[in-house]
């Protein structure tokens, strides 16, 4: 946790983190590595174990197995050193409806024994200003809209200068304007050197603001890395339908294309009607050149498509389609 070592260190690190509720394994052997200074997108469909993982990171729930360290210190044993340096929005905002927005923030700030009471008023004011709630500071939270509560929740995470921000679905309930503001807020926090851990099921959001991401599915961590790495694994590929699969593979090899590795690819599927093969697109080989080379080699091309991979494809490939909540 020294200044020099920060760049290389991990802001959050979990090893074999698991949580069991009764018979159900909500989180199953998660090894998460969140580099310091990154904006880390934590993706996954509803019910995939994202919030449970976050609860364990913050010491709200105990792990059934495995370990978590946050800012280089074991959680939950050293929460009193870790948590004052962490701002969090967990599973939506929660406030006392009978208190004003400002009184709510003062209350939660008073709970932190490290927070100085002499600067409390000023810090609450600054946090409210950062999320654009100054005009509603004196209003009872009962009268707040969902978006305003969400903003107040983010303000609570910003009460003290933080090294790590854990934001669980920060744009939930916000209008497009508010979503944009949150995005720019996250960027400015990251620019100031804080690590931002954002959980979301909105891929577009993650693609726009994150440098790194991890994908959860049914309690397991199915992918993590930089955004570029994740996109790479799902980048554009050629899908070729032909009965001459062996011949086609030879042509692909000559063009310097290897069968794509990883999930959902790199396999040749043969059927009675013919084979289907696909490989990654090389930027220096135009798709029409591939077709020409195939035809010249005598490959009967029955179908040819260039499929552009995206984070969304990758996400769906990893977590499955449809509305099925992973059990």
């Amino acid at each position, binding site marked *: 946790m020294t200044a020099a070592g920060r760049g290389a260190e991990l802001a959050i690190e979990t090893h074999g983190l698991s949580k069991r509720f009764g018979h159900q394994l909500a989180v199953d052997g998660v090894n998460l590595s969140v580099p310091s200074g990154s904006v880390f997108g934590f993706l996954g469909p509803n019910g995939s174990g994202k919030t449970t993982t976050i609860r364990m990171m913050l010491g709200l729930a105990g792990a059934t197995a495995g370990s978590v360290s946050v800012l280089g210190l074991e959680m939950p044993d050293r929460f009193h050193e870790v948590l004052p340096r962490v701002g969090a929005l967990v599973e939506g905002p929660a406030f*006392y409806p009978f208190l004003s927005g400002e009184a709510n923030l003062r*209350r*939660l700030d*008073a709970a*932190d024994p*490290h927070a*100085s009471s002499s600067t409390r008023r000023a810090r609450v004011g600054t946090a409210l200003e950062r999320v654009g709630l100054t005009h509603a500071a004196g209003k009872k939270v009962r009268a707040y809209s969902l978006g305003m509560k969400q903003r107040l929740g983010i303000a609570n995470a910003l009460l003290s200068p933080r090294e790590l921000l854990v934001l669980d679905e920060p744009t939930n309930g916000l209008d497009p304007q508010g979503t944009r503001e949150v995005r720019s807020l996250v960027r400015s926090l990251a620019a100031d050197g*804080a690590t931002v851990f954002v959980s979301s099921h909105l891929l577009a959001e993650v693609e726009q603001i994150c440098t790194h991401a991890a994908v959860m599915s049914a309690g397991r961590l199915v992918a993590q890395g930089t955004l570029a790495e994740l996109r790479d694994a799902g980048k554009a590929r050629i899908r070729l339908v032909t009965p001459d699969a062996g011949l086609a593979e030879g042509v692909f090899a000559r063009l310097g294309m290897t069968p794509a590795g990883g999930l959902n690819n790199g396999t040749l599927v043969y059927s009675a009607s013919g084979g289907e093969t696909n490989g990654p697109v090389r930027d220096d080989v135009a798709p029409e050149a591939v077709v020409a080379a195939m035809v010249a080699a005598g490959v009967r091309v029955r179908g040819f498509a260039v499929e552009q991979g995206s984070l969304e494809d990758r996400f769906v490939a990893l977590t499955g389609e449809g509305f099925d909540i992973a059990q």
Partner: protein
Amino acid sequence: MPNRDVAKEGAAGKAAPVEVREAAGSSAAESPATGPIDGMQPGNGWSLLASELSVLFRRRRTWAMLLALAAVPVLMAVAVRASSSVPPGRGPAFLDRITQNGLFVGVTALLVCVPLFLPLTVGVVAGDTIAGEAGLGTLRYLLVAPAGRVRLLLVKYAGAAVFCIVGPLVVALAGAGIGSALFPVGPVTLLSGDVIAPGEALVRLVLVAAYLTVSLLGLSAVGMFLSTLTDVPVGAMAATIVASVVSQVLGELPQLEWLHPWLFTHYWFGFADLLRQPVAWDSFGSNALLQAGYIAVFGALAYGRFVTKDILS
């Protein structure tokens, strides 16, 4: 750890997070193993208690309960004043003495409030301690702040204890107030037959209220333990009130004589000793000891439950 203070000052400015980094870095260089006390400024530990009391007494519900308690002596005094005479020996004890001395309204009202009204209000406050925060979802934010689970539990109990002080005091003072407004006030004849001045009588009245405060501390501990078991505050409140009723009912059954000294309600009506000259402190002492036992046992249970609890609300 002065650097942390610098960081705190910086928080007021816009460029705060940059300073955090520096502060965290340099402070780590100076004291690699930061202890829990590091960076804590004197007096800050009390902020949460002050905040807890302010939240408790800013709630309309708390004021409604205190007003309801204050209404008991007022209604009683007005009813007695309106009627021509109270036949001696009927109604609550001391009721027939009210017309001669207004200060008796306070004692009579306390006596009336002991079995149900006071446990009811204390049950609401104590049952709400943890479950109320869990129900609102603010519990997770308090713990992430980080309030610390033990600290939060202690502060919550202290808040309930303050209500135990305020509740009986409101009844006693409202009683003395309305009594002196509607009836004559003069020297008070104690149960031992001695006569004391009105000023000293007021002290005795406050003493009785203090006795009831002590009586309710055990119930508060039971309520707080029940409150750690659920995320539904109404459930914990109801269970606490039921506990006080059950304890009183068991105390009425002669077949359970052996159990009676162990019931937290056992000494609830024992404050008559404070109305003798000289004051007999025996029941006060026994009551305090019994309540301390309940605080220890249910405090430990609440601790055991809350410290390991998964906060999923």
